[in-house]
């Protein structure tokens, strides 16, 4: 999924990029003028953004190239969301942005300006883990654990939208998360048990 791009530019850009010594031709000054007429812009320097992360308002300065994932991990110290493929192919970096699951590695931090972000760090209440987290531990729904924060965020969102999911609904809800240790059956069981525990008010 993705973007349209100015056709032909990629090629020209590529040629210039491999031109060795002649790289570094930028046209930023004239662009500045252009964008002032046609809109607003940030960058190439740092931009200031505000995020509400796990209920806390945070103001940070980010280079426009920074992904939301890197901003969370490197600037806010929230290393729970994992950087595994870093290209939208595994789901380990899944966070909840304005109530929807997204891949934090595949979006720019500046695009999250003003947004509400929920990460794995925000699930526990003090020392008390979220029921989904507890069920993952009880049911051994992880081995190496790299995929786990992503699976848990997808599962938490599912149970928020659908408190009594069927097995197929559980499978579908985590279908965008990969586990190379193959813990899927345990994940499905954990989510099912968490759903039941949450209904009992656990």
């Amino acid at each position, binding site marked *: 999924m*993705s973007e349209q791009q*100015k056709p032909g530019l990629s090629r020209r850009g590529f040629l*210039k990029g491999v031109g060795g010594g002649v790289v570094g031709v930028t046209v930023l000054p004239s662009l500045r003028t252009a964008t002032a007429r046609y809109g607003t812009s940030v960058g190439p320097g740092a931009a200031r953004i505000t995020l509400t992360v796990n209920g806390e308002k945070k103001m940070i300065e980010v280079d426009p190239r920074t992904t939301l994932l890197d901003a969370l991990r490197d600037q806010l110290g929230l290393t729970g969301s994992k950087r595994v493929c870093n290209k939208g192919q595994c789901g380990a970096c899944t966070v909840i942005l304005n109530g929807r699951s997204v891949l934090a590695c595949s979006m720019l931090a500046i*695009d999250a300006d003003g947004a509400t972000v929920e990460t794995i760090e925000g699930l526990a209440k003090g020392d008390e883990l979220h029921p989904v987290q507890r069920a993952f531990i009880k049911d051994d729904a992880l081995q190496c654990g790299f995929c786990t924060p992503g699976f848990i965020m997808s599962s938490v969102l599912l149970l928020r939208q659908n408190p009594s999911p069927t097995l197929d609904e559980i499978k579908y*809800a985590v279908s965008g998360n990969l586990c190379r240790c193959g813990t899927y059956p345990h994940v499905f069981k954990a989510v099912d048990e968490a759903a039941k525990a949450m209904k009992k008010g656990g």
Partner: protein
Amino acid sequence: MKPFEYVNPKDIKSVPKILAEAERALLFAGGTDALARMKEGIDRPDVVVNLKKLTDLAFIKSDRKGLRIGAGALLADIIASKDAQACPGFVEAVKSVGTIQLRNMGTLGGNLCQRPRCWYYRSARFDCLRKGGDTCFAIYGDNKYHCIIGGDPCYIVYPSDIAPMLIALRAEIEVVGLKGKRRVKADDFWVLPAQDPYKENILQNDELVTQVFIPASARALKSHYVKFRERDSFDFAMVSVAVAARLDGERLTDVRIAYGGVAPKPWRAVKAERALEGQVATEERVLAAAATEFANAEPLEQNEYKVILAKNLLKRALRELVAA
């Protein structure tokens, strides 16, 4: 990644002007594909044009004339929209794209303008033909996922799931550039490498896709999308097929068939359509129609399986279409 200026254009009309004035600009909506290409260094824009804040690109509307969807509409919102349900095959195709997370981020326009998945293309280490080099590495390289028809000089497949369905539904794509608007048939939007090996569609340097129009006539058609992938949870199609037709008793009329995963553009199977028009879709007839379509296929060393798959998927798609 190279530093860039991130621009929020004030309206749609400003986008072509920025594209025309900036030397290396990149349109950026959901950004899931564009960002991956920027990280890899295969796109090195000076200016990234953010389309997400253009709220008049993000609409889903239906009226007497048909369904109109803005290029900025999120795939997840299209799936959830009541208006889109009138074309079930279209919703199936949108649902089969990426993952839940990616559909929460990706847009319709982005899906239609995504760049190829060829791994030589995706790696900055290969200066392949599509990126301005002289060689297509897929011809003698790893070509399991490449095209079986319409290649030469580049053997990509066009990866969009939605594109073949738009062709089957006779959709049109609206494009805006410096000279104003134009509407293009989905069937004419994508190009083969023989026409232009550096881009996948007819967009000019100053143009962007603004909306897709699915005519009301599509509501009277049955439509269905079948996607075959190596990993069932999420993946790009190895081969996929979009079918749309009217069912007149047992007979198919107004048949439209378009494939994904077989050619550098979504491949309208005109010969198969002709063979099936007005006919009862018996298994033999469908297989024969697909065989005619792919009689001139030229599979590469590792992808002959796609010819068989393409025939069988059409059989399955039409059987399910008739049964639905």
